[in-house]
């Protein structure tokens, strides 16, 4: 099948050409609402890349990525609340709670430059500190997952309860704010944001690719597969884990900011427990340990979710629950992993179309041999 794209150059460039074409064509052919959805799902792809880095590559399952996602969103939304206010004016919601002066931590968000940096630095710092404290004590596995979930709840309750500081449950709305004189909720602005999302998604993908191809990436995979051995070889896993967790936090922050301006609101709901777990399932379905899988999973699942919840809202939880089970039990490496490990070929072989064999047909095709091979691989513990 690969014969069609036999030229190496073509194969290397074709995806990029397609991406550029898609970015140019989609805004024309898709109605604004669907385009906006696609833009939002792509930005969710960025947080999924981060989840993939820490879970797919490093083997740490964080159930608290919502913290960093929301922090990024809040940083941008706070700037937009203050933008174009007259001096001495306060964002409107403060008057509901009788707040007379702007809380001090809002002040820096008057500056666009500070905001642009804060969107990814604040989440990265929070992730870094949290990560360092946890990893230093060699807390890992399920304990790590649960601690991140607890941290998520701490942040959720805090943001939810602080009406006077951050407008509590209501969150901050962005679509009626203006930037460069243009309404953020307008179709033209949303189209620009879509392009921005595409560019940043590609950049994030390249960053993750660079991180995972090379010594750093090898160290991450080593941590996932056998941390004590890595430590005995003289490496310091804590540093690697802290750095990668901070990077994932930064990615989540950027993702949250993009998602916020495209959905028009940031609220503590972004730190709800189920949302952060959903992020993991995007990666799992797409294929963990493969970057493209994370992006694909995020877009596909969210698209499916919005379609299903339009048609049959009651069934979505069944489908989502089923996906969790399916991915864990039957497709541990997700769709992309299944594809790369020759899944389609095996499927075709099942209906009687013998695949081209690499060794002897008797070895390649015998189900008994295949099963034993599977078992061996599973025992090895590594998922490639």
């Amino acid at each position, binding site marked *: 099948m690969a014969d069609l794209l036999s030229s190496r150059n073509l194969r290397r460039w074709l995806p990029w050409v397609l991406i550029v074409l898609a970015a140019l064509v989609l805004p024309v052919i898709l109605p604004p609402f669907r385009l906006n959805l696609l833009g939002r799902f792509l930005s969710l792809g960025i947080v999924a890349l981060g989840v993939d880095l820490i879970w797919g590559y490093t083997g740490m399952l964080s159930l608290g990525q919502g913290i960093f996602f929301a922090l990024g969103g809040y940083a941008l939304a706070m700037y937009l609340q203050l933008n174009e206010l007259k001096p001495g004016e306060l964002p409107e919601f403060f008057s509901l709670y009788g707040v007379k002066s702007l809380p001090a931590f809002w002040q820096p968000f008057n500056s666009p430059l500070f905001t642009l940096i804060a969107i990814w630095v604040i989440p990265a710092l929070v992730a870094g500190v949290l990560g360092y404290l946890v990893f230093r004590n060699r807390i890992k596995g399920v304990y790590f997952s649960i601690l991140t*979930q607890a941290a998520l709840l701490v942040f959720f309750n805090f943001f939810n*309860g602080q009406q006077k500081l951050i407008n509590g449950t209501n969150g901050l709305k962005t679509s009626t704010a203006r930037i460069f004189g243009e309404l953020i909720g307008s179709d033209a602005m949303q189209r620009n944001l879509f392009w921005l999302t595409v560019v940043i998604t590609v950049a994030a993908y390249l960053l993750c690719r660079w991180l995972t191809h090379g010594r750093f990436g090898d160290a991450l995979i080593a941590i996932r597969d056998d941390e004590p051995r890595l430590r005995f070889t003289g490496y310091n896993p804590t540093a690697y884990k802290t750095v990668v967790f901070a990077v994932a936090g930064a990615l989540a922050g950027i993702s949250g900011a993009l998602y916020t301006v495209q959905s028009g609101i940031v609220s503590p709901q972004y730190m709800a427990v189920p949302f952060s777990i959903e992020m993991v399932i995007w990666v799992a379905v797409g294929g963990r340990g493969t970057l493209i899988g994370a992006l694909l999973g995020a877009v596909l699942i969210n698209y499916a979710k919005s379609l299903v919840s339009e048609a049959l809202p009651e069934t979505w939880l069944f489908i989502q629950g*089923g996906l969790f089970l399916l991915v864990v039990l039957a497709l541990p490496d997700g769709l992309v992993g299944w594809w790369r490990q020759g899944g389609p070929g095996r499927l075709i072989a099942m209906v009687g179309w013998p695949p081209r064999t690499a060794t002897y047909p008797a070895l390649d095709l015998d189900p008994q041999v295949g099963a034993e091979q599977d078992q061996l691989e599973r025992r090895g513990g590594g998922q490639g």
Partner: protein
Amino acid sequence: MDLLYDTLFNGLAIGSVLVLAALGLAVVFGLMGVINMAHGELMMLGAYTTYVVQNIFKAVLPEALFPIYILVALPLAFLVSGLVGLLLEKTVIRRLYGRPLETLLATWGVSLILQQFVRSVSSAFAIGLVVAVVAGILVPRFTPKAWWQQRWTPLLGTGSWIVTGLVGVVIASVLGEQRVFDQPWFSARNIDVTAPVWLRGSIDVGVVNMPAARLFIIALTVVALLLVNWFLQKSVWGMRIRAVTQNRTMSDCLGIPTEKVDALTFLIGSGLAGVAGVAVTLLGSVGPNLGGNYIVDCFMVVVLGGVGKLAGTVLAALGIGILSYVVGSGSLLLVWPAMPEGLNTVITFFATTSMAKVLVFALIVVFLQIRPAGLFPQKGRMVEA
């Protein structure tokens, strides 16, 4: 002094709910290293069992028996949740042995399905489901054996499940046209579980006012703890569970049926969740989301308590209970009215129920910096894996 008793009692009351809810989780986590995200939903099933029992008592049995319905609900809830847990262990968790993170995700999936199940289940739905499952299991029995040893057997297996599933959906939707079959059993609404009169009042002991429901839960917790402790320490199977908890491989070598031990433990852990479900109907709402309100607190108890001993669970739960009460009710201000201005502001800031939760969780994270493995870490020389 009054305040001290009051605080102790209320902390004990909050803590005992946590003990009861977390007990099953702790037993399972200790043995299998598995965090069961569907634990909250197993509690919910216990609560729904209470509802069904209550309605049966109301409708069928003489009124004089109504006050004891809750005592009947306890073993039934244990059974219902325990059996669902057993099914979960046999179908899902067993296949994921040694992969705790995957288990966590899979059980989360199960929890979503269970939540939606109680919302959607109607007679039509149930009949369709039963038909689909039974047909799916029977297909291999009624098809030529040779079909099941072919290259394409996996496809056939998947295909037959898809077909039987669709048959189930069709049956459910055809039946659903009928109003009788379409009525949801519970629906997404909260359901009304009414405590019997003897659990609605309160008793004044000295200066402390003790609600009967709270006393009942405390008593239930003590009984459950004693029973679990007796079972683990004195019974043969309990000994086996402890052996597997300490060293799985060695126990396996010595002929302990570890698979049976796993299944039994999971059944007990899930059954305890069901019992906790009965208890919480006395305190709060009963609805499909019931589990979510307790589950994270339970995780905190387990993480803080460590996996070694039940005492860890108990101590952690009581600690969290007393701390959330003291912070949330702002009683520190009453004890020490003349506290310095700065501290005063901080205490008042956290003296609401929501902010108390923030503080307690943050303190747990800090505590784990000092004792990463919880209050009672498991002793022994092990390679960390």
